[in-house]
């Protein structure tokens, strides 16, 4: 099932994404005090309401997508965890320990929204990172890797927009603050329930910038895979329903975001998340995949006379 939050006439309600559009689910789960609380209520009571939701999905009257505004399915998780350097980058390199940082929960935007680059000239560039998002159930605590599925409600698309200090180093280095500017976390277009994705570590992830393909990788390239991510996070952080783990990205396709661009992240089995980019300062960078000396892009490494792979992200 594909769950969404949609807005019509100023009201944000839960819905089910079907072929003809969105079927409202508000007769099953009423809108709560906030859109995030609404989706949390769907997650927390999903088993109880599954049958009723499935009936709506097959028999409800969908409203065409051009008549509703899809909002981020998780507008404000309490916790957004993001993996650091979690991909082999299709290269042979030394294993690295699993690391995560927390991203500003107020940085979330949804389908059709706009990433607004900050009016500060200190970060030298702002780049996209296309990622699989794991949406958690409630009551998640110290989950073993063999029981990881009990903690996962579903999956979504996440763009981890990142301000750069030097090269592809995160601005503010170990603070990871460069990942937390307002609007730097597009999420959507929906949450696909976990029963529809049997293997999250075998999904193709593609990202286009104004139609130019940038990221194109499979989640099989993850070093620390989804079961370990769920187990590790649940052992270290207090988590609740609707919290989000972004699994990291294969950095080979990194590139700058620029004023006026339209970008799209597509993940197999989930769908496409499309957002725009606005830069009040109308800066420009060389268009295309980032090819600096610290890039993990194999062609960039070859140009710079370096072996494939790269250093631990900072």
């Amino acid at each position, binding site marked *: 099932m594909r769950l969404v939050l949609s807005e019509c006439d100023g009201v944000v309600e839960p819905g089910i994404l079907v072929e003809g559009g969105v079927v409202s689910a508000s007769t099953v789960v009423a809108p709560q005090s906030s859109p995030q609380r609404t989706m949390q209520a769907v997650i927390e009571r999903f088993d109880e309401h599954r049958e009723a939701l499935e009936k709506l999905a097959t028999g409800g009257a969908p409203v065409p997508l051009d008549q509703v505004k899809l909002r981020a399915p998780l507008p404000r998780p309490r916790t957004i965890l993001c993996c650091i350097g979690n991909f082999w980058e299709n290269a042979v390199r030394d294993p690295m320990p699993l690391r995560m940082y927390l*991203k*500003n*929960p107020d940085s979330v935007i949804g389908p059709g929204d706009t990433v607004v680059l900050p009016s500060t000239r200190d970060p030298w560039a702002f780049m996209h990172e296309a990622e699989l998002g794991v949406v958690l159930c409630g009551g998640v605590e110290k989950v073993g890797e063999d029981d990881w599925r009990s903690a996962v409600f579903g999956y979504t698309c996440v763009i981890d927009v990142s301000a750069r200090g030097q090269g592809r180093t995160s601005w503010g280095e170990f*603070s990871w603050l460069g990942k937390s500017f307002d609007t730097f976390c597009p999420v959507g277009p929906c949450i696909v329930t976990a029963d529809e994705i049997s293997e999250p570590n075998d999904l193709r992830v593609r990202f286009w910038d104004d139609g130019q393909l940038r990221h194109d990788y499979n989640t099989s390239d993850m070093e620390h895979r989804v079961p370990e991510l769920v187990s590790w996070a649940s052992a270290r952080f207090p988590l609740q329903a609707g919290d989000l783990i972004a699994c990291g990205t294969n950095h080979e396709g990194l590139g700058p975001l620029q004023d006026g661009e339209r970008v799209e992240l597509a993940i197999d089995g989930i769908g496409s998340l499309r957002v725009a980019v606005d830069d009040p300062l109308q800066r420009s960078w060389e268009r295309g995949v980032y090819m600096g000396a610290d890039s993990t892009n194999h062609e960039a490494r070859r140009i710079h006379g370096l072996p494939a792979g790269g250093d631990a992200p900072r």
Partner: protein
Amino acid sequence: MRFVCFQRDGQDSVGALSDGGVVDLSGIATSIPDLIARYERLGDSLASAHADGPVWSLDSVELTSPIAQAGKLVCVMRNRPTESDDAPPFGYIKAIGNGVGTGATMRLPSGDAAYFYEPEIAVVLKGPVRDVEPERWRDAVFGFTLLLDVARAPVEFPPGVTRENWTKSFDTACAAGPCIVTADEVAVPGQGLAVEVAGAARTVSAADPGQPALAAIIAFLTSVMTFHAGDVIALGAHEDTLFAAAPGDTVTASLPDIGRLSVRVAA
């Protein structure tokens, strides 16, 4: 005024400290962020609730973390010896999660890692605020509280990595309280911040020799992100006030204008 969160008969509520104990304000506010968001408009209803509301004695309630319902907590990375004094006051997002209040127990994660206490003053913001001018920082501040952060010694970090902020977000890691004092009652934020650690074999104490520039911190962080009512910025700890943590300790951070935040530490 001094606002608190408290638990009584299994119910979480918002209150205000008074001479008699805690005035129950649950009739006018559901949470601290809710109180702050509507504070300017509450006017007479707050005054009435404070004057006429039920009062619970302090020993009949459990004070809980006054920032547990905050939307987000940003912690300034004050101890960065490799950075120049001109470097921006970068901060990281810390999980508030299951933070504890004064009198509660902080449970250190299992394992061999060493931890250090970091006593700090925390700013509780009005909201929404964004791009605050340095000279207008007071317009963005609702009040202040005490916060006890912990840091893990960097013994297991990958080569070249000097900080791992996720290690500061374990369950119970964020102790705060005892109350939020409104900004009008705090003359010089942070002046007199002291910490005392008492354990089986030792007692150590220190005072923070100086607080970082609040105006610059608020201006910088609000240039990065919007802060909403009840969001919190912790100002970081001076190296003079860092002490190694040990199960069995009682750690007390204190500030004359705010009070005492005291937590037990367990493994």
